[in-house]
């Protein structure tokens, strides 16, 4: 059995799980269309593309280092021989799988309570800012932040 054959099995598992996550997200959105519009698709695709490029480049760099210093070895008969530097192309399947599997699992675990959004606001200032944004979103709230 080759490295690609095993990757294929695990990548199919990842794709299946991602399909389930997409389906659930779609049905959730249909159920609550008006209340949560969500972020635009183009924005999500752009962020995912950027993260993908960065992770693949980092994988190329660090996989080469790890193989170079001898942390891991491969049976040359079971890999395709296509390499990025000295890293087998097959290794990149881990990074691709992580990029699909992890956000899908995160999405599947989503409940009624939305997570905090990533923010550039420093942790020490966060409590105040989050309180004010919640107030601004709440119906009938006065828009105090206009005064800033």
């Amino acid at each position: 059995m080759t490295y690609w054959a095993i990757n294929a099995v695990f990548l199919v598992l990842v794709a299946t799980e991602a399909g389930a996550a997409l389906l659930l997200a779609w049905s959730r959105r249909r159920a609550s269309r008006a209340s949560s519009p969500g972020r635009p698709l183009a924005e999500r695709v752009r962020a995912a593309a950027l993260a993908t490029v960065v992770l693949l480049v980092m994988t190329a760099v660090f996989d080469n280092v790890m193989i170079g210093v001898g942390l891991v070895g491969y049976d040359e008969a079971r890999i395709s021989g296509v390499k990025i530097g000295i890293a087998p192309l097959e290794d990149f399947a881990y990074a691709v799988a992580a990029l699909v599997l992890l956000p899908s699992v995160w999405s599947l675990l989503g409940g009624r309570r939305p997570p905090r959004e990533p923010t550039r606001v420093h942790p020490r200032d966060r409590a105040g800012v989050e309180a004010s944004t919640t107030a601004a979103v709440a119906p009938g709230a006065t828009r105090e932040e206009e005064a800033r």
Partner: protein
Amino acid sequence: MGVLYLVALGVALTGMALLDRRFALFFWRDGWRAAVTLLVGVVFFLVWDVVGIDVGIFFRGETSFMTGVQLAPELPLEEVFFLTLLCWLTMNLLSGARLALELLDERRSARSGGARAGSGGGAS
């Protein structure tokens, strides 16, 4: 008994935690959800590793950088930390990319004379 690789992974994981906390990227978005996601990821990749090792595709290098502690034949202790790092990095990157693009857009609109830019950024 080398601990160099383990220490390097520890340093990198500390970096992941610091970035996560600073920008609310993964655990600091929703701790319970992040913990389950990370656990699923690490277990999934460990199974992938074990299958690969079982079939004889990869094996642990004989190096002085690793402790030599094995969780299973050819599966070094360090692999768990490596996979944790891979998963945490992936989720931090996905969240961080959103922030980076947001910042870029704000800068772009500020430069082109946009009046309302730079909201919420301030503190660093």
